């Protein structure tokens, strides 16, 4: 499986965020997206899953399921945790695994993996920011999808949980998955490619500096 993009451009609110972005990620590889605030890291991930229209350029997935859209084969871990405060930890995870199409909703193992198995009946409203994050990571483990798109996955996580996330990502890569992650920090993945969004001058920025 190979996810590739050539000359991607993104326009938000009439402003060009980035242009000329190209990358290629294969099965077993990870791509770290870096760049200053506002460089378009999140926009790039949202574009890959199909939540933002591709303004120019080409985005392709080779070797995936031809019957499905890219977004349907991918997990997207955004800034928001997509949790309902009035539902319990278990209900939140069971809903997402049901909605995302897990045949048998086994939520015990994913919850144990992120260390939330003791809180299964607690309403999500009582979780801390880091625990909420871990619960949304459990979603990636509960439903198997080959492509992981992670937006600042380590934010709000403590050192131990970051370590654990690194293990999940390595296991995912070893199992034939691929990862794209926007991050300021360290991903903890050796041999990850890097994509610097700052170094691709947008035409407007080039005009302004000249």
């Amino acid at each position, binding site marked *: 499986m190979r996810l590739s993009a050539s000359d991607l451009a993104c326009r938000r609110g009439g402003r060009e965020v980035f242009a000329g972005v190209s990358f290629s990620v294969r099965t077993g590889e990870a791509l770290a997206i870096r760049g200053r605030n506002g460089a378009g890291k999140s926009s790039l991930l*949202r574009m890959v*899953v*199909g*939540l*933002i*229209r591709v303004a120019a350029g080409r985005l392709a997935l080779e070797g995936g399921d031809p019957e*499905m859209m890219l*977004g*349907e084969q*991918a997990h*997207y871990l*955004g*800034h*928001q*945790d*997509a*949790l*309902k405060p*009035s*539902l319990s930890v278990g*209900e939140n995870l069971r*809903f*997402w695994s*049901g*909605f*995302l*199409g897990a045949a048998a*909703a086994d939520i015990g193992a994913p919850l144990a993996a992120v260390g939330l198995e003791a809180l299964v009946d607690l309403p999500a409203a009582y979780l801390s920011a880091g625990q909420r994050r871990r619960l949304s990571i459990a979603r990636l483990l509960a439903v198997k999808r080959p492509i992981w798109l992670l937006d600042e996955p380590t934010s709000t996580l403590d050192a131990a949980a970051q370590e654990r996330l690194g293990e999940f990502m390595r296991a995912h890569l070893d199992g034939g998955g691929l990862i794209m992650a926007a991050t300021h920090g360290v991903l903890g993945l050796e041999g990850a490619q890097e994509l610097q969004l700052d170094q691709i001058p947008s035409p407007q920025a080039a005009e302004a500096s000249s």
Partner: protein
Amino acid sequence: MSPLAAILVRDIRIAVRVGGGALIGVLFFLVVVTLTPFALGPDIVLLKRIGPAILWLAALLASLLALDRLFAADHEDGSLDLILMGRAPLELVVAAKGLAHWLTTGLPLIIAAPLIGLLLNLDGRAEAALMLTFLVGTPALTFIGLIGAAIAVTLRRGGLLLAVLVLPLTVPVLIFGVAAANAAVAGSVPFGNPFTILCALTLASLVVGPFAAAAALRQEME
């Protein structure tokens, strides 16, 4: 569990828990209808004549109450992103959310209507007819409301815009719902005529609502 069943079960759970819309809607309905006899005075003939209209108006406003959070809550916590990415067609997801909304706000109104009808001096026959018009008409209110809820999804205080957008569209449902209920009470016009038009309005809104709402959501989320 299929994606649509998962959405349905989740939305019903959220609605019936603390802070959900189910109880608010039916309480609002009861309060509005209870206040009417106090405002109009104990004129039994007048109450009987305008009773169906009062009940229908209260039902219309009550079903709008929880509607503005229907998509906005999913938008704010990021769930809507994952729903848009999902394999389930957005139109069907929207319809499942509409069904959950009707089951938690429309259905309680139908159950509460006969009790509250006593306050407006409605007899058994009129109450039965009213329940029937509610059963057929309130899904139309929800499914027309879906369109407004989808258009107002990104707005912080979308409730007001929602009411302004949705209320004019519900005028036909109101006219024929009240007409059918009045026909059953007064017996001057056959009950069947307005009632079949009400059925037709509901069927049309069940089809148009999810498609229009899904189109609006896709547009808003760009």
